[in-house]
């Protein structure tokens, strides 16, 4: 495959996850939905997923070398 898709996918999720988390921290109560600090929870989840995807892509690249 030309490109390990986990790399751009992971980078995008990290970037979006950081933005949503930051919004959750800054907005405070305005970023709460149905009693949940949803921006904070989901932003961190997206960032963690993205970081895992990037890590897997980098490990695979190192193994190939």
């Amino acid at each position, binding site marked *: 495959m030309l490109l390990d898709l986990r790399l751009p*996918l992971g980078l995008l999720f990290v970037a979006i996850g950081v933005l949503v988390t930051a919004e959750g921290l800054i907005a405070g109560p305005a970023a709460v939905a149905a009693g949940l600090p949803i921006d904070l929870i989901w932003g961190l989840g997206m960032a963690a997923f993205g970081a895992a995807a990037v890590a897997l892509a980098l490990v695979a690249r190192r193994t190939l070398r």
Partner: protein
Amino acid sequence: MGAVDWLIIGLYLAFVLAIGVIAARRSASGADFFLAGRSIPAWVAGLAFISANLGATEVIGMGASGAKYGIATAHFYWIGAIPAMVFIGVFMMPFYYGSKARSVPEYLRMRFDEKTRALNAITFAIITVISSGVSMYALAKLIQALHVFDAPFAAVGLPTAWIFHASVLASAAVVLAYIYMGGLRGAIYNEVLQFFLIVAGFAPLVWIGLRIVGGWHGLATSLGPSYVHAWAGMGSPSTNRLGVGVFGLVMGLGFVLSFGYWCTDFLVVQRAMAADSMAAARRTPLIAAGVKTFVPFLVILPGLIAMALTAAPAVTPPTAGAAHQTAAVIPLKLDSTTGKPMLNASGKPELDYDLATPNLLLRDLPTGLLGVGLTALLASFMSGMAGNVTAFNTVFTYDIYQAYIRRRAEDRHYLHVGRLMTAVGVVASIAAAYLAAQFNNIMDLIQLLFAFVNAPVFATFLLGMFWKRATGHGAFTGLVAGTLAAALHHGLTLPAGEAAGVKGGWISLVHAYPSEMAQNFWTAIWAWSVCFAVTIAVSLATRPRPQDELAGLVYSLTPRVEDAAARWWTRPVTLGVVVLAVTLALNIIFR
């Protein structure tokens, strides 16, 4: 919408275009541009397989159907998709992939003859352009409904009606850019990205929505049992929300329409044909089926939640976001000329179900997550459009241009034609978007198109792959007869309460169905049955091809694909059985 929402959408668009640029580095030949060099791993092809279908019809249409019909809409997945996806993975992919055909119409030429290929290629090209237009229409309608461009347009003195036009052109430009550069590879890479974004955008919406309405129990309480049971009242068309009986559902949707789409539509089959091996090609639809089993919870549940909040608008979300409203989530459908609410056959105001999911997003997601949700919607529209455009450029270039206009040119020439056809397909899709604006429910339009075109095609493939006696004359005559039967049935029947015209009854009224969906399913059943019978009759009356020419194209004349080398849990049959078992369990749980 806040600045962070715009930033998230901008990031997504930048990544989409960047992936197009990267994919362009390996699009120097026709095989690269049209087939992604047959180099895509199974998991990527599998997610692209499902994402190419996860366009407007899924996100807006299934949300709308969820609000209108309830959880019974899941039949479009558990009955109307999964069995067919398992069937193509286990039985049909060896013929598509093993024959080295570059497209589904090309397989028909190899198995039958040139005229059968031409008929399929031309009808397919038309249907892909219309489907792509429907995606564009849905996107433009959504952006209009969000009112995010009202102020900028007013500032420069443009009427707000132009927002629709600007949205259509902008979405078309992005899709055109990344497919023009990266071809099928660019589309597939982006479809995977789009799939994950769709999950990331809709999962929190469902989570929050269920908390607001009091979970599944709250949904059942506010909407009633007919909304939360998939099989309740299916014994008769008059006792369920779909207006369809068990036979119509299983035969029309579960067999004819479903197998006609998932097993023969080049839009999805093209993703599997781009896989890097026969084993990967067979696993592609099975991986997609495993994921597809759970997609109803992402796209249908928002519709039910929106309906629950519309039935009880006093339920307000415990949030503090500025965009949140307490009004009903699903608005009344307004007549575009008079501005007054439209009434149904019984004189009650109609709801604009297509706005169920977008309005729920706006209502319940706070800034930040709203950007993710809107990006998910954008992603779904673009993946749907891109899937259609890549299938269109391939079929037009190989099955129409190379077959009938210029047969023996250099590969580079066909590459240029493919890029040109990408632009032509996008422009034709824009025209189709304005056509789609004339219809009430997007799903009804799509089902009607499938009933006319896809339903007879599956009979042709079934006989072509599993009956060596089927001939080219039989296949062609059967296809024409099946399509005519669909048109005749549509012209003689009408859904209850509808006026004769585009909804049917344009010849005479012989029978009235309880719902438009029932009419569509039965149109498909008639089309398939007539095609099947006529193909057999004409084949028996015409001379068959020599058997040695059919090796690799017909089941009984093709050596079985050996799975013994693969670990047992990765074999197609094992994967298929697991997916079917999970689907059965879900049907029992939501019966």
